[in-house]
């Protein structure tokens, strides 16, 4: 039995940074429980990762390998995770607040009749009853709530970049194999094709020029693209962002979306054009070093979080701005 179990994720053939952060969080919670923490790795081939994980200090690395776990078929991964939880019987299970964590977490909670708290930004153990105190932004980020729920395992998905990654040291843990009990009949949702798309890597942008409902029409993004090109002469990695509403309207693809259900970013400069600033958007960009807002509504939220503001129609400002930028460069 392990007191705290971490569901590991693999990225580009190595342990995901978020998993190292979870190991950091797991170590802290195990300390508060006076117990130990372990890692669970699932996939078609994870032996290399198990060796890689040991120096980060888990008491055990559980390894669940099966050829059907190649690629990610939710039904099979879920069955394996449920099986592992029943065998390992952890008090606490932590997953990344990632695609994988959100595919598996809610359904696992239902199967194990326990309660999940998603997107946690802090975790601790209540010394009174040993239950997990789960801190999570709610109401889009307008409030921070602490939840305590019954059930075992105590279950949470954890936001990236809030816990420090575990440090590498002596490897004293052991690797334990779990034999997966899955077969193809468990697949209820059949995968037909995976279509890879060119995804804009917004989290790597130094400058983001972002548009929202206030653009009024799809063509507004053409003007933003011209501004992006003009800024690219002076800045590296200038990219186009947008609000959720711009995606809803079909003006731009969702990989450009900034915010709680898009990408959370902290670029050097964020230029918000025609974005009023729903809280779900603000939490995704408010850590930008400098924020510039262009909007016709002086009362909108974006001006409250911005360093510089222009209350004017963007169609007036942006062409003039591009001209001035050319003169300056």
């Amino acid at each position, binding site marked *: 039995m392990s007191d705290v179990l971490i569901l590991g994720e693999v990225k580009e053939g190595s342990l995901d940074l978020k998993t190292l952060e979870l190991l950091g969080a797991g170590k802290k919670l195990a300390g508060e429980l006076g117990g130990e923490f372990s890692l669970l790795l699932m996939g078609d081939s994870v032996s290399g990762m198990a060796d890689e994980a040991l120096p980060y200090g888990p008491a055990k690395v559980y390894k669940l390998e099966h050829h059907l776990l190649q690629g990610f078929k*939710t039904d099979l991964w879920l069955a394996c995770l449920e099986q592992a939880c029943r065998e390992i019987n952890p008090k606490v299970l932590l997953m990344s607040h990632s695609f994988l964590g959100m595919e598996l977490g809610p359904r696992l909670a*239902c199967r194990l009749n326990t309660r999940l708290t998603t997107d946690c930004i802090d975790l601790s153990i209540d010394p009174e009853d040993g239950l997990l105190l789960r801190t999570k932004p709610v109401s*889009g980020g307008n409030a921070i709530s602490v939840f305590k729920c019954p059930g075992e395992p105590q279950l949470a998905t954890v936001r990236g970049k809030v816990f420090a990654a575990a440090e590498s040291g002596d490897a004293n843990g052991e690797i334990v194999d779990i034999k997966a009990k899955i077969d193809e009949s468990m697949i209820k*949702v059949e*995968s037909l094709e*995976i279509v890879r798309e060119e*995804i804009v890597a917004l989290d790597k942008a130094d400058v983001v020029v972002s548009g929202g409902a206030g653009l009024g029409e799809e063509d507004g993004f053409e003007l933003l693209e011209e501004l992006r090109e003009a800024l690219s002469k002076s800045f590296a990695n200038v990219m186009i962002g947008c609000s959720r509403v711009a*995606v809803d309207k079909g003006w731009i693809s969702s990989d450009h979306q900034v915010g709680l259900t898009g990408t959370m970013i902290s670029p050097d400069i964020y230029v918000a054009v025609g974005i009023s600033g729903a809280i779900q958007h603000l939490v995704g960009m408010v850590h930008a070093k400098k924020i*510039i807002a262009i909007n016709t509504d002086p009362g909108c939220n974006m001006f409250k979080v911005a360093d510089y503001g222009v209350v004017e129609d963007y169609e007036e400002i942006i062409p003039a701005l591009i001209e001035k930028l050319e003169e*300056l460069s």
Partner: protein
Amino acid sequence: MTEIRIIVCAKQIPDPEAPLSDVSVDAEKMEVIVDAPQVISPFDENALEVAVRLKEEAGGKISVLSLGKKVSDTVLRKTLAAGADELILLEDDNFENLDSHSTAAALAGAIRKIGDYDLVLTGRQAGDWDSGQVGLILGEMLALPCISLARDISIEDGNVLVKKNIPEGYERVKAQMPALITVSNEVGELRYISRTKMLKMMRGARSIPSWSAEDLGVTPEALQQMGITALSSPPDMGRDCELLEGSPDEQAEKLAEVFKTLR
């Protein structure tokens, strides 16, 4: 083409686009107070939109379920104006601040009561608590194939075909109906509803059924609240905004200077 029966779960929440000044936190009562109009949660509107499109293609019936201690039919009648055939309110004093599991249990009760359906659609997450769980738990409870984060849904020979968001792009998947699907905003916003149509629906004499926990076969003991032990305001995000004044040309010039200093 066979007609299709769709159930859409829609949550009523305070407008998530509300100005920040309209939101406050009562730490003592552990409540978020939002002084804003009630709306349908945005991702649930996306789910309704895709339901209406599917009905337009194949024919059929759309039922909308909305759960809460007290649900406003004036907010939710919009779903009827948009093309839903039936609106059922799930109201009970015990439905206040339910956790995701209990919410799903109550919705599952209502869906079993309806009985005959091909698709259950929910938004990917609600715009107030952003938990993102109810849809998938509901699917588990009803033992349905579960597909999350749909950006496109179509029907073919009793199967549902979905393009679902994945980190590297999208995946085309297929499942037998009935199935549960959580919908993402890429499907598009809810269609425009004319004022006349909206008013007609508001004034309509049509009575909206309301089902209680007892009607759903859910005992109060099976319903748990969210278990909030503390609530606080987030760190202040506000900055002192320097407004650039003058004609558009002057404003643009000042803005260009700002960029120059940031280089």
